């Protein structure tokens, strides 16, 4: 059962770390997305080099029933390759922006992966037996001369070493003029949406040559452009409902039953802003970088530059909860604008029972907010805390005045060490946290 989250009793421990130790990070190794599948048994990562790596959790061993299985490499493949659109003089990065798993229907696993322009459906299947004993073929594949065949035999399947194969089953291309930021599978398991800066399209998983445009916010005159779409997601159980967030800090909820083109929203969620507090940075830091429905479907969470907000779908006027991720950065906005960090897109996630939310920050810190206990904690993903099962010590940023021992001052934070992508196991207290090029897996301490 999903754990108690960040309450008093939960302690997070290091479990595993994946990736190279060296500081010289190749661009291709930068992790760009992390996602558990629906059972939590599989964990997928995508990187800037267009590669996908899938880890599988080992089954709990009988010797140590209290110890959760480790995640080991299950499959890895090149999902996307760099392209050049000669017609538009546009370089298309192979970076994987998002991975979304389909719910499992048969022995194979399916996932959608997307770069800026093209979405692909990948099938990951296991092969653990092969046919042997052909009459006309040798075991190595060479053909036998039919004249040498004197007796016939029936080929049989024999067990072989497990082979995991990934094959692209569908390629959904040429539907996006702008850069895809989100994909989301519908609860009907037949359709999915893809969103770019100005448009959202609806696809059927079986059909690649056609896509329906369901949201279009492109202005007739591009000079009048004031807002772009930053993220979109389908409701977890209402197949007609989806939301999309904007660079102005608004979230629109749309009902596909209302009309074919959902330019008119059913609900618009926006927190009123105090006009006296408005500054040059206000709009930039209000831009929503991620939106996620709770598992229950009753709430949604948004992440903007400095905070995480929880919204009740029944109340559009303001969020029901607001959590400050790193408020101390408000007095550093000028330098964060100059070094572009103010445009960093942090993601956020819910735990299995929607009681705790998590998001990343700088200096390889990540934050958890327990909604019930009203507690928050800052933890760090670092090789220094990577002894097996060692408990993570809460970290604290000193915001002014005397710095206590073990605290770190705001000016000492490393803004190149960003945690943008985190994921929480759907059923258990296991989390995956991506630093620039390493993947950390933490678990709560059992016993």
């Amino acid at each position, binding site marked *: 059962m999903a754990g108690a989250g960040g309450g008093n009793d939960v302690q997070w421990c290091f479990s595993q770390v994946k990736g190279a130790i060296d500081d010289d990070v190749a661009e291709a190794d930068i*992790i760009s997305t992390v996602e558990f599948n629906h059972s939590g048994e599989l964990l997928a990562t995508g990187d800037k080099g267009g590669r996908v*790596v899938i880890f599988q959790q080992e089954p709990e061993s009988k010797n140590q029933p209290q110890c959760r299985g480790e995640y080991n490499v299950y499959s890895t493949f090149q999902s996307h390759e760099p392209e050049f659109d000669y017609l538009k003089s546009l370089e298309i990065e192979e970076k994987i922006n998002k991975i979304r798993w389909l719910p499992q229907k048969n022995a194979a696993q399916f996932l959608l992966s997307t770069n800026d322009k093209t979405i692909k459906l990948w099938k990951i299947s296991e092969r653990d037996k092969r046919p042997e004993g052909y009459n006309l073929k040798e075991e190595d594949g060479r053909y036998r001369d039919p004249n040498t065949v004197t007796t016939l035999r029936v080929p049989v399947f024999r067990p072989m070493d497990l082979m995991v194969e990934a094959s692209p089953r569908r390629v959904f291309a040429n539907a996006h003029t702008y850069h895809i930021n989100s994909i989301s599978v519908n609860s009907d398991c037949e359709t999915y949406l893809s969103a770019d800066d100005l448009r959202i399209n609806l696809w059927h998983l079986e059909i690649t040559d056609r896509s329906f445009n369901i949201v279009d916010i492109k202005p007739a005159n591009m000079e009048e*452009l004031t807002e*772009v779409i930053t993220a979109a997601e389908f409701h977890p159980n209402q197949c007609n409902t989806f939301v999309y967030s904007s660079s102005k800090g608004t979230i629109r909820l749309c009902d596909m039953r209302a009309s074919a083109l959902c330019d008119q929203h059913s609900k618009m969620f926006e927190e009123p802003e105090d006009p006296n507090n408005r*500054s040059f940075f206000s709009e930039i830091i209000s831009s929503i970088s991620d939106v996620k429905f709770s598992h229950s479907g009753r709430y949604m969470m948004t992440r903007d530059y400095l905070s995480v907000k929880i919204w009740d779908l029944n109340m559009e006027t303001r969020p029901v909860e607001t959590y400050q991720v790193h408020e101390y950065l408000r007095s550093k906005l000028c330098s964060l604008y100059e070094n572009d960090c103010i445009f960093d897109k942090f993601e956020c996630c819910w735990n299995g029972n929607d009681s705790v939310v998590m998001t990343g920050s700088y200096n390889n810190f990540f934050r958890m907010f327990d909604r019930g206990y009203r507690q928050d904690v800052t933890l760090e993903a670092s090789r220094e805390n990577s002894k097996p099962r060692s408990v993570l010590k809460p970290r604290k940023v000193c915001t002014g005045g005397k710095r206590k021992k073990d605290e770190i001052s705001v000016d000492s934070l490393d803004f190149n060490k960003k945690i943008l992508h985190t994921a929480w196991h759907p059923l258990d207290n296991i989390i995956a946290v991506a630093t620039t090029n390493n993947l950390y897996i933490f678990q709560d301490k059992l016993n």
Partner: protein
Amino acid sequence: RLANVPQSLLIEVEDKVISPEKAEEAKLKARYPNLGHKPGGSDLLRKRLQKGQKYFDSGDYNMAKAKIKNKQLPTAAPEKTEITGDHIPTPQDLPQRKPSLVASKLAG
């Protein structure tokens, strides 16, 4: 209201309290006085929409090659990332991006 404090002093205190955000804005405007008045607006968004845009005109390139076939073609400074209009790009400026043939280091 603070009792026994002269009005003039109160007003002075209020003026000095600036939100950290506005202080940062003042810092930015001091460093970049020509910063546009439409913050976070169309300029930034348009820059975002144009990500990945590279310019290479094969017509310009071939004409330039024909004109100065005996001289060295002007080449871009190695650090230049944006190639537009007046500068004659060469194929070296727009390197063929090949897929990474190396497996991900996450796969150990």
